[in-house]
């Protein structure tokens, strides 16, 4: 029997699903009032109050998506903020990284300020952005951009500096002008570094959007979570978190797909030379 179900590459998905079900099963077992006698809390209602009940949480998600179908507006806003923050932050980071990577003097001048901006806890800017850009989408996008920008920027900066000098000299000997060098050598070389950072930065764009909503908004999944928290409705909070997690996974998978399509020149196994 064990021989049949033991983990192997073929039944990986089944095991992953099993693990998920086990977690929710345990959760259900430990929180549902009356299922087992309380051993940590004074009465049997408290576990459910603090941790929520999986069945109710799924009921809430079902209502959001199908019964009431009222989450789409919020989800759309959050996703829009995420995608905008991700796109703008990546573009700015790519531009700034290329520029500073290619002009060492500018990089030397800006160096301490970039380090300072990067080490600053940028989430703290959210209230300022709310004042500047209002409570709409813009302030959340701005927060996400500050988070994404630095990740991409540092990777591109590193990527430009680590372009293989031989490949560069070869392209120059082949007659590439400075603009062609940028387009055909620096940019492709930096993209491999950008992609290694995109998985992190898409997550951070999401963080920026949700934290922004959480701190002040009238729409978005972060707003839903905030509302539920105000009413001590832990089930709705958990449901919101689950929905956010699922969509973060979807975004990450989308980035992975894009990466595989654009980076097919990169060796997959055996060789891992970074150029």
């Amino acid at each position, binding site marked *: 029997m064990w021989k049949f179900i033991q983990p192997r590459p073929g039944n990986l998905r089944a095991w992953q699903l099993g693990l998920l079900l086990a977690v929710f099963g345990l959760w259900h077992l430990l929180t549902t009032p009356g299922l087992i006698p309380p051993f940590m809390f004074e009465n049997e209602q408290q576990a459910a109050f603090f941790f929520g009940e999986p069945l109710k949480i799924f009921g809430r998600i079902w209502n959001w998506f199908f019964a009431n179908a009222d989450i789409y507006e919020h989800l759309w806003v959050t996703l829009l903020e995420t995608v905008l923050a991700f796109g703008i932050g990546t573009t700015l980071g790519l531009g700034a990284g290329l520029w500073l990577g290619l002009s060492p003097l500018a990089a030397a001048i800006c160096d301490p300020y970039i380090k300072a901006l990067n080490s600053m806890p940028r989430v703290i800017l959210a209230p300022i952005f709310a004042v500047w850009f209002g409570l709409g989408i813009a302030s959340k996008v701005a927060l996400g951009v500050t988070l994404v920008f630095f990740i991409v920027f540092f990777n591109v900066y590193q990527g430009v500096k680590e372009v*293989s000098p*031989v*490949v560069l*000299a*070869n*392209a*120059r*000997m*082949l*007659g*590439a*002008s400075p603009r*062609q060098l940028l387009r*055909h*050598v620096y940019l*492709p*070389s930096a*993209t491999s570094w950008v992609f290694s950072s995109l998985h992190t930065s898409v997550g951070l764009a999401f963080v920026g959007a949700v934290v922004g909503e959480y701190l002040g908004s009238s729409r978005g999944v972060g707003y839903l979570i905030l509302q539920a928290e105000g009413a001590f409705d832990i089930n709705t909070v958990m449901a919101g978190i689950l929905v956010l997690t699922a969509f973060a996974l979807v975004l990450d998978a989308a980035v992975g797909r894009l990466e595989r399509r654009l980076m*097919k*020149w*990169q*060796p997959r196994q055996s*060789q891992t*030379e970074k*150029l």
Partner: protein
Amino acid sequence: MPSTAERPPALALDGVSCTFVSRDDPGQRYTAVRDVSLAVGAGEFVSVVGPTGCGKSTLLNVAAGLLEPSSGTVQVFGQALSGLNARAGYMFQAESLMPWRTALQNVMAGLEFRGAADARAQAEDWLKRVGLGGFGDRYPHQLSGGMRKRVSLAQTLVLDPDIILMDEPFSALDIQTRQLMENEVLALWASKKKAVLFITHDLDEAIAMSDRVVCLSAGPAARPIGEFHIDLARPRDVAEVRNTPRFIELHQAIWGVLREEVLKGYQQQLAA
């Protein structure tokens, strides 16, 4: 030796010295080559041999215009070189293909930079000539080391440069592939008759391929210590020519000059 009496040589290095200053410690200086004069006539195949680390690659970088000499001048077809040497093609020792371009796109690169209209057709033609007609859509990491070198060769030669600079292009290849490539290069050179400056540490290779072999002393401050005209008949087969008596004679003569320098270079590396 072709008649280059009236015409200026394709490439002429005159009194070239290169001193590198250590970036961390400006007091530390290293003179790679000192007072090197070297000329390559149009259509001539010249090899430079010398012990490891003697500054052969430095000379080539100077000839390519990638490196400005500390003193001395470089002339290309009689004109002083400033900036990159646009009439030269450079085949590097290390991997120099753009990994994000396929073999065909790599060969096309130079033509594309120049805005040639029929870049693709020419590149396909050259890929066929180096025996990689069916490999145009492969990325460099999908090709073997020998194939990558052939793509590099096509990438350099498709631009039809008047001067070809080669820096130990085959040193990473196994002996069979290497001889195949050497013969290919000789055949291509014979049909086009370009000036070639060929750097190698393999004396056999140098003699088998060249019109002239220049020996460099051990570094630092390497300089030419001997020059030999290779009067073996052409066309040559690099594998067969090695067994002719004249080849062995030449090999002994050059090795006599080079031997001491190689030992010196080796000792220096041990001491360092």
